[in-house]
């Protein structure tokens, strides 16, 4: 290779930068994503769901082979398709094991098959939303029954759920600056999931009794997070002093320079 060619090649290599190259997705997304109407709607709904955010794609629930167009919907490859209404708790419960148990023991679960709600009644299908306390609301609950009991449960859960959400945001902020929170994340995630199981019991007394125990656990986690934040605040204090000293140094050096210039 001539020196000039080599130089240009090197320059090109140095400046080679990303050009968005995300994988085009599974065959399910490719095919259904290109369709309109009810066949394309699941893909539209799924985008923006908590499942999409956690990389749970079509085949995660419906089975099949996401890499092979011909076998994508083959029962041989485990394709399930759309479950019957009475099968929905088992369909979702393959992953959400604890929630399924609590649901089946609750008034909601006992009414399964006789007009009672399934998972998708509250959480939606395809556009599955993150389980938050906001799912308990007058508009949705009164589709089936009075809101009073649901409101009682919501108020019993609200403070603890709010604390969990605040801690999650704090931990996310800490992660954003490189603080390792993996262990605490895991503990909080576990606590949150166990706490959210209480939602599905739809039993006010059980919710009140369970919440107190969760608060104690939550306080322990919060104590650890507070200690990290205190350390970070100390850093900022020292950092502020360093910045002020450097700026003072800059001003002083500039004044010295000006005095030299005046001398000449």
């Amino acid at each position, binding site marked *: 290779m001539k020196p000039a060619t080599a130089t240009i090649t090197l320059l090109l290599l140095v400046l080679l930068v990303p*050009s968005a190259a995300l994988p085009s997705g599974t065959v399910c997304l490719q095919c259904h994503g290109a369709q309109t109407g009810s066949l394309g709607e699941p893909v539209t709904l799924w985008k923006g769901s908590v499942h999409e955010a956690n990389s749970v794609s079509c085949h995660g629930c419906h089975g099949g082979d996401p890499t092979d167009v011909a076998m994508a919907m083959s029962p041989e490859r485990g394709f399930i398709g759309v479950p019957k209404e009475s099968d929905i708790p088992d369909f979702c419960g393959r992953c959400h094991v604890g929630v399924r148990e609590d649901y089946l023991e609750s008034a909601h679960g006992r009414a399964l098959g006789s007009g009672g709600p399934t998972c998708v009644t509250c959480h939606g299908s395809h556009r599955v939303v993150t389980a938050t306390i906001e799912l308990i609301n007058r508009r949705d609950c009164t589709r089936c029954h009075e809101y009073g009991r649901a409101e009682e449960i919501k108020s019993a859960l609200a403070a603890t759920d709010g604390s969990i959400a605040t801690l999650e945001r704090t931990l996310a902020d800490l992660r*954003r600056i490189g603080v390792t929170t993996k262990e605490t994340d895991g503990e909080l995630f576990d606590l949150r999931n166990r706490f959210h199981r209480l939602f599905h019991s739809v039993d006010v007394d059980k919710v009140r009794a369970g919440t107190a125990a969760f608060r104690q656990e939550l306080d322990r986690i919060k104590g650890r997070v507070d200690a990290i934040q205190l350390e970070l605040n100390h*850093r900022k204090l020292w950092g502020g002093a360093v*910045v002020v000293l450097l700026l003072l140094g800059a001003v002083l050096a500039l004044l010295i320079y000006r005095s030299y210039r005046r001398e000449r």
Partner: protein
Amino acid sequence: MELKKRILDFLDLRLGVRDLLARNLTEYLLPRNINVWYTLGAVLLTLFAIQFITGILLLVYYDPNTEHAFASVQRIVNEVPFGWLVRNLHAVGANFIVLALLLHMLSVLFMNSYKSPRELTWVAGFLILLLSLGMCLTGYLLPWSQLSFWATTVATKSPDEIPLIGDAVVRFLRGGAQVGQPTLGRFFALHVMGFPFVFGLLVAFHLFCVRRTGISRPPFGPGYEPPEPPRTFHHEEHPGGIPFFPHYVAKDIAVIFLFLALLASVIFFVPGLFFPPAAFEPADPFVTPQRIKPEWYFLWAYQTLRIFPNEFLGLAVQGAAVTFLLLLPFIDRSRERRPSRRPVFVTCFFLGLMAFIGLSIWGHFS
């Protein structure tokens, strides 16, 4: 004082240091109308020194192995005393270096200081800029985060578009078909040894050129006339100018402190400014992050590649632009250096600057 004098006497007898110091400090005169842009060289030397020292400290705990790299960086940041400070100084400092290099280059360009007899100074400086970008690129992979892995995957894939040799170049860069341990190994070697070695030589040559040719006079003020192109070697003197030491060094220190204050502000108050969330997740070849964007100083090139229908065409345009800038002193041969007498050049300068900023903003939001 007696001890200081004795040490100086000892060194002076053997090395003639008094004469050396006088000629390079107190008797080394700079142009009277020298401006603040000339301090960027000293700022850069300070930032380079910080990179060098923090880089060595990071090497004590860093493990260049795909199994342990991410954990070792996490350990440095979270467990090693002041590790967070060392790591942030290194990573954030790299961004400040690119910023200072760009400002330095732009000021030299605007003042036309690259012209004869300073062509070699410009070429060495421009290569330092390119090598710095190369060090940024190789350093990016070392934490073995999601950002590292995917940014490198996409960056090393681009040469694939080069006809005939594309695939071979990709494999050469990666050490295999995919980004993996061989890639980390070669990027690590380049980042901590190969590039710094060449970088050190280039900086030394650049400084030698600056000192040997003499500082160029800013092309401003009523008394300025562009000098005749030299026919033989000539060191540009500035009789009646400002002594480098202690006069101009005081100004150098003021601007260095200002840059360090800015660097410290980012490190202590907005440490996540240059780190997207993917920078804190371990590399996972099976999960592609949603939005992979290069660092701010590569955004212009990233957007250029997206504008052109063919990636190779985009690469060729970038290569042509970079080559043009590298060879500018040999292309622009006019004697005139005053921006006020060069309207076409000044227009091109600002259009180029606006294109750089505009493409970067576009790339950020695209």
